[in-house]
């Protein structure tokens, strides 16, 4: 099974500055492989080169060096576009056409059979109901995002590219997109999406790549990147009187008040939480929850960004 998406030393320089334009390296020698059927998270802060990479893959812009392939064909191959879908960040289509008309137009470009049924189905799937007959002029940002998703999956693609698919959506919308991605995964579709919201990546992705300042900072399975062993324990307790607080505070790693009598207690990894829990119950306090503290992707992410920045400054 070949890779669904591959890049090799993909590099992009832009000219910046008006009076004396200088080259700016937005993407530096990116080499990546995404297997078929994976959900791949392409993560990084703004300006890290994520959008640039996606545009290079779609050949909306041309590389300075390196190459990219989708489903074994070079990026920009027109035939392969029948088998892929793309959602741009903040998509915008045609003011004067309705959602239905835009999708019908695209469906015809894809040369699909049963255009009408397909369009209808896809609109249902992204949650656009009666609004489908309205002109896109009248759509809100969230609705436009849905139209964008619709046109990305219209042709039942093998690979879907999503640039910040959650942007502009409220929590309900975000949940729906997450569910859509999971459905796509279940169908065997490869999903490549970029985001700066890491919690989504944690739940959805099998593998991730972290970009910082145009370079690949790290990539691999989340489970490999982020240690699984707990770093510590977090307890939420209530019914703690001031006296008890004073006694406990020096014994634990951290104790933070939440509201009257409620505290968050952090214990080191080496401590045994069971002992404290028994003691607290004996003293009349209540333990509301106990959770292990693990490295999240976010922590890992911040570490990578920080070291990438250090690398850069040390190089200067």
């Amino acid at each position, binding site marked *: 099974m070949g890779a669904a998406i591959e890049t090799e030393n993909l590099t992009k320089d832009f000219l910046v500055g008006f009076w004396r334009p200088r080259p700016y390296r937005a993407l530096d020698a990116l080499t990546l492989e995404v297997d078929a059927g994976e959900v791949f998270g392409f993560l990084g802060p703004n300006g890290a080169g994520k959008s640039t990479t996606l545009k290079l893959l779609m050949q909306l812009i041309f590389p300075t060096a390196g190459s990219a392939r989708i489903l074994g064909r070079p990026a920009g191959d027109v035939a392969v576009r029948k088998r892929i879908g793309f959602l*741009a960040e903040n998509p*915008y289509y045609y003011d004067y056409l309705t959602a239905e008309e835009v999708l019908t137009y695209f469906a015809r470009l894809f040369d699909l059979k049963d255009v009408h049924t397909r369009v209808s189905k896809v609109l249902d799937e992204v949650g656009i109901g009666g609004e489908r007959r309205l002109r896109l002029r009248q759509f809100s940002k969230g609705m436009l995002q849905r139209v964008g998703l619709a046109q990305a999956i219209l042709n039942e693609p093998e690979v879907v590219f999503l640039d910040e698919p959650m942007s502009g959506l409220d929590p309900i919308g975000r949940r729906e997109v997450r569910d859509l991605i999971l459905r796509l995964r279940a169908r065997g579709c490869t999903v490549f999406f970029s985001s700066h919201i890491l919690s989504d990546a944690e739940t959805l992705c099998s593998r991730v790549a972290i970009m910082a300042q145009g370079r690949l900072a790290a990539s691999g399975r989340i489970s490999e990147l982020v240690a699984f062993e707990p770093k510590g324990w977090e307890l939420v307790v209530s019914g703690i009187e001031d006296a008890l607080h004073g006694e406990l505070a020096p014994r634990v790693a951290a104790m933070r008040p939440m509201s009257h009598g409620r505290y968050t207690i952090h214990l080191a990894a080496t401590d045994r939480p069971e002992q404290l829990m028994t003691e607290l119950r004996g003293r009349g306090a209540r333990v509301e929850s106990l959770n292990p503290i693990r490295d999240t992707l976010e922590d890992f992410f911040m570490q990578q960004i920080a070291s990438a920045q250090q690398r850069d400054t040390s190089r200067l």
Partner: protein
Amino acid sequence: MRAIVLVAGAVFRESVRDRVPYSMVVFAVLLMAASYLISQLTAGQDLKIIKDLGLASIAIFGLLIAVFIGIGLVSKEVERKSVYGLLTKPVTRSQFILGKYAGLVLTLAINIAAMVVAYYAVLYYMDVTASAATRAGWPAPAMDPRLLLATLLIFAELAVITAVALFFSTFTSPLLAILLTLGLWIAGQFNADLRNFENVIDAPAAIWVAKVLYYVLPNLAPFNIKAEVVHGFPVSMRHVGLTLLYAAVYAGMLLVAAAAIFRRRDFK
């Protein structure tokens, strides 16, 4: 090929909803009002004035449609990023350009046709309400089919201008594209004067430059046979044929150039 037709269809549908029909209505109403007013004010010259006014309106309104919608087709789309949706579908960038052009030319044709219908309606009214004596004095009939010939050349001229608009909008901002296109239209009207430069100026270098410009820039004066048609003077069909061919070739060249530029553009 299919892709071009589909893109053209989408362009047409969008421009039909884009207030363009209103300009047609405005024109038609303008013409009706003008003809009523004029028939009250002047004596004898009203047919000529209506014919002149009609052709001029078709030319000007047509120009405005060609320039403003033509620029919007590419420049605006690139600015608003709606071009991403289309360029990631199974359409090549060249098909995109050709489809946009075809759609606009279709829009132009339909608009001009509607204006011509209104025009002939007014001319019919003139014809029907005029006395036999007045009719005898006209150098050309009111519903002269040669007016269609003049309109055809106007349409061909506008097809060239649309190609100019499309060409500029592949690489400049909408505002600049509008200015450059209108500038070239104005230059195109005076282009014929460049041919006579050698009779007026002495410097051989300037004459050579003028000749080059004459051939390279669009030469729009030959498309203008309004005076002949209105006065009833003869028009050479060879001239018409060669001019139409010139329009096709020149517009074709601009489209190839537009495609060449568009194919290599970065859409950041």
